[in-house]
């Protein structure tokens, strides 16, 4: 009987001891930091990972993430300086830098995000509102994002929430659906212009080549004509010299012979010839009275 009671008491004590032991240890993971609280009141912060001890029951532990945290901000419409609307989808990287302040001011990540969202929206509005669409898209997105990050972080520091905004990045900054059509229309016109320019250039180039070809042809033919005339001239002069050399041996005979030849050629057929009876040819035709 006595031993059974003793065993029971011993058992109860053992359970209580185990509970106390379990409650006096806590583990902080490599990526965590912890705040130790006495009934909800801040006592100390622990950022060293590993096994830690605390007074059981009286002290409680709340853990926060130590890593860089992600916050994908809902897209918002922002009006630029040139009164154009952009849908801006951004995200932010932030971290809990001071668990004590964080616990005192914000306590939960969800609340922290709400604050971050307010800060970033207002910074985005301010930054985008002072630049034109073209500048935001093309010129210096990097600088804008750095400016927004810097000022958002300053604000977060001023609010003493124990958080740091490490980076704010614009994931997308695009025109709203209803404005895209005007861009598409402009793009089509631009393309049309380029297309007709190409075609005109093609014709220009082609005409140049053709004109060049025609010119080349004319020049070549003229050149050939020139050479031809030189050759023919030479030939003529050589021939003239040969003829002259031969004929000047007896110009009178040449004249006579050439004339006869000409008659043969010129007076070929079907000519009506009126012959005078006094002509040399007819000398003997009616020469009965004359000498033979």
């Amino acid at each position, binding site marked *: 009987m006595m031993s059974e009671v003793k065993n029971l008491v011993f058992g109860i004590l053992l359970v209580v001891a185990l509970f106390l032991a379990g409650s006096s240890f806590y583990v902080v993971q*490599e990526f965590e930091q912890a705040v130790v609280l006495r009934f909800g009141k801040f006592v100390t912060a622990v950022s060293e*990972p*590993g*096994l830690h001890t605390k007074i059981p029951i009286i002290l409680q532990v709340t853990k926060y993430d130590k*890593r*860089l945290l*992600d916050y994908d901000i809902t897209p918002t419409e922002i009006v630029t300086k040139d009164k154009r609307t952009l849908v801006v989808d951004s*995200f932010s990287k932030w971290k809990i830098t001071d668990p004590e302040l964080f616990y005192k001011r914000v306590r939960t990540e969800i609340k922290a995000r709400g604050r971050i969202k307010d800060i970033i929206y207002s910074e985005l509005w301010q930054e985008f509102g002072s630049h034109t669409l073209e500048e935001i898209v*093309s010129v210096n*997105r*990097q600088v804008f994002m750095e400016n927004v990050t810097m000022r958002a972080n300053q604000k977060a520091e001023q609010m003493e929430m124990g958080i740091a905004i*490490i980076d704010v*990045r614009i994931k*997308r900054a695009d*025109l709203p659906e209803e404005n895209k059509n005007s861009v*598409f229309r402009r793009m089509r016109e631009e*393309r049309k212009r*380029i*297309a*007709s320019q*190409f*075609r005109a250039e*093609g014709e220009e*180039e*082609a005409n140049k*080549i053709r004109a060049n*070809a*025609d010119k*080349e*042809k004319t020049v070549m033919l003229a050149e*050939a*004509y020139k*050479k*031809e005339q030189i*050759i*023919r001239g030479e*030939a*003529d002069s*050589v*021939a003239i010299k*040969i*003829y002259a050399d*031969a004929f000047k041996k*007896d110009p009178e*005979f040449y004249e006579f*012979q050439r*004339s*006869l030849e*000409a*008659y043969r050629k010129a007076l*070929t057929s079907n*000519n009506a*010839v*009126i*012959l*005078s*009876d006094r*002509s*040399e*040819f007819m000398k003997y035709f009616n020469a009965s009275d004359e000498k033979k």
Partner: protein
Amino acid sequence: MGWEDKWRPPGGQQPPINIPDIKLPDLPPLNKSTIISALMIAFGIWVLTGIYKVELNERGIVLLFGKYMKVSEPGLNWFVPSPIGDVIKVRVEEIKRVEIGFRSSTRERQPNPNAFLEESLMLTKSVNIVDIDMVVQYQVSDPINYLFKVADDDSRELYDRGLEGTVRSVAESALRESVGRTEIDMLLTTDKGRVQEEVRQLIQKILDKYESGIHVGLVQFQDIHPPQEVREAFKDVNNAEEDKNRLIREAEGYLNSIIPVTRGKVEQILKEAEAYREQKEKRAEGDASRFTQQLEEYRKGKDVTRKRLYLETVEAVLENSKKILVDKQTAEKMMPILSFGQDQALMPPGSAGAPTGAGGVK
């Protein structure tokens, strides 16, 4: 058991422990030595659960009460088991990928051109819109930073989770930043490679700033084209370029055909001229030779030859002609009349009967 499992990586290698099997019904209860030996067996089994295997493409990150201790290399290893110790395996060799503007699973066969447009449509310089599908391939370069420095929104647990959300957001941001600085024509033609590399470097720079332990190996534009709404207009520009080239080619064809033809013609003209020269010279020489020979004989009997040649000629001329014989007076009267209405050459009486010697002029 349940609470132990919490920190164990999924698919852990620990041998199964079957506590219900260690019932020892034959032993008398509360025997001291029995309890001690039971505890020792349990302890032994617990120690054995500390054996784990690290695959070739992995590294094991060893934690003691959540605190980082060391990295274990591939092979069989042992560390104090849960709940005291823990090992997280990171597949460092594995190439992970993020797809922007499309998903491989929906890309099969008939890709829906309107899928993920909000990701793939973006503004270029001069406020044009372009449609880009991009793939980012990355690897874990530093498993410790990878695990402990950055958290994705949707996965806070400690395991090899790829940090896909972070990489995706950063990639989209970097892509739009680079594309926004580039003209659409450059993107579609020459600058694609340059922008890819720029995006890769930008992603790497941002991820390094986050100390994410990630190395971006490759950024590739799978597809880059004008949006659906303006595609026809862009095609027409290509057609116009084709047209331009065609026109030029045709003109060049004309050039290439006309020059050889002309060269042939030039050659022909020159050959004809040369032929003319040859002919002219040869004929002249021939004529001259003939004349010289005739002259030689003519000189031997001048009068006779002269008369013969004359008569032969008149004979030949008159052979085929109508002859009208008149006396000299009549002939002189008729002449004016006969000169009219007859286009064929006439032999004027004086001429036909031209005396010898200074015969008719040609």
